[in-house]
């Protein structure tokens, strides 16, 4: 116990505080996921459109979001909007904005990939069955694309959860920040606390992401038939 520095977890409300930090991280990432998935499906479908202007705009958006490190995006939104526009966004709001924009961009590219992987004869047979274009997408293209999308989007969701560890940089007190506070506060009495606390954080992240992986496996099995 002493060697691992686990005893700090039982001091005061430390463990509850860690869970609270995890709660903040999960709240932001899952809200962003809820926004990203439908928005990504919409933009991804538009990316397959034949209109070159729409395609160019979406392409630019995707590239910007993909190339910029998430930390830079967080700084841009949190500090940049204050300086440039005078907005007073809270850290959590900034994080939600960045994660939604980033998630939407990545999701849209996954959706685009899944849609263009559906062979042309699927569209043709839909047309031969007299389906309208919306019916073709709803009955034929999306169900097949979603199956291909499932493992990829689960990957994205877990990545979004893990990347919330960056938001402490804009002052949001999430699980990593709480850990640092606990470790600092007990520097003298439990010099080994860093090990035990970060080990706990590892297990907390695992506990948060594993059910999502399980859900993915369950959904894939169900889609298989």
């Amino acid at each position: 116990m002493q060697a691992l520095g686990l005893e700090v977890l039982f001091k005061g409300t430390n463990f509850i505080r860690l869970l609270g930090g995890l709660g903040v991280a999960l709240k932001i990432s899952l809200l962003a996921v809820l926004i990203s998935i439908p928005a990504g499906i919409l933009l991804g479908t538009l990316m397959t459109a034949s209109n070159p202007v729409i395609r160019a705009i979406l392409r630019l958006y995707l590239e910007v979001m993909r190339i910029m490190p998430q930390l830079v995006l967080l700084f841009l939104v949190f500090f940049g909007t204050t300086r440039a526009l005078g907005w007073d966004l809270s850290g959590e709001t900034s994080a939600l904005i960045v994660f939604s924009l980033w998630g939407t961009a990545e999701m849209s590219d996954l959706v685009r990939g899944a849609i263009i992987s559906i062979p042309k004869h699927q569209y043709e047979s839909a047309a031969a069955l007299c389906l309208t274009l919306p019916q073709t997408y709803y009955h034929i293209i999306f169900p097949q694309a979603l199956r291909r999308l499932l493992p990829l989007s689960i990957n994205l969701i877990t990545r979004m959860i893990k990347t919330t560890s960056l938001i402490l940089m804009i002052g949001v007190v999430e699980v990593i920040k709480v850990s640092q506070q606990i470790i600092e506060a007990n520097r003298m009495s439990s010099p080994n606390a860093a090990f035990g606390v970060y080990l706990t954080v590892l297990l907390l992240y695992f506990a948060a992401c594993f059910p999502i992986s399980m859900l993915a496996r369950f959904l894939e099995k169900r889609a298989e038939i």
Partner: protein
Amino acid sequence: MAFIEIDHLEKTFTSKSGDTEALKDISFSIDKGEIFGVIGLSGAGKSTLVRCINLLEKPSGGRVIIDGKDMLALSERELKIVRRDIGMIFQHFNLLMQRTVLDNVCFPMEIAGVKKKEARVKALTYLEQVGLAEKAAAYPAQLSGGQKQRVAIARVLASKPRILLCDEATSALDPQTTQSILQLLKQINEKYSITMVVITHEMRVVEQICDRVAVLEYGKIVESGRTKDVFESPKTEAARRLIYTRDYNDIMSGGSGI
């Protein structure tokens, strides 16, 4: 009067690397209730031709006249109505994998607004017609290739077509299964008097069910006529080559040739 009339049909694909003339000055007519074969090697333009009949591809020139209606002169809405009369089956069956066999057959009826109960009853009779009633609750993944094509045929029957386009419908199947599917198509042709256009690269398919045949090479019809005549005295090199290929295949598979 001819039921389907193809009149000086042209199709050119335009791309960055230049134009490709897929179909050149194609003209033929098909009578009501006839089974018409179009045979040619890969790349001859067969699939493009069949897609021009139901306007999945828009022809670059010429006319497609079905039952007296000029397909190219129709509005989008009118075209939809005419297209409902034209069924199509494919090499890769194109069933909905997430739906059971029965639901697959129900699908076009649901889209057309038929009540679910009514659609199910009808779907079952069509499944009986193709000999698959006992597989109604199965999923396509649990079926063999021949069974999948039977489901596709039942599905196409459900939309009550007057014309059936078969695009390499037996090309993914082994010889025995091909035989049984061809027999089924023949039965359907007789029972519902559906006019059929059969696209294939296999001479034996033409030989078994087609009344007349057109030989397509490099986007042109090089020979056409009654199947028997084309077989007994092919006039062109292209037709001869296709027939000899068949004999060669027969020898290879232990058959007896002609």
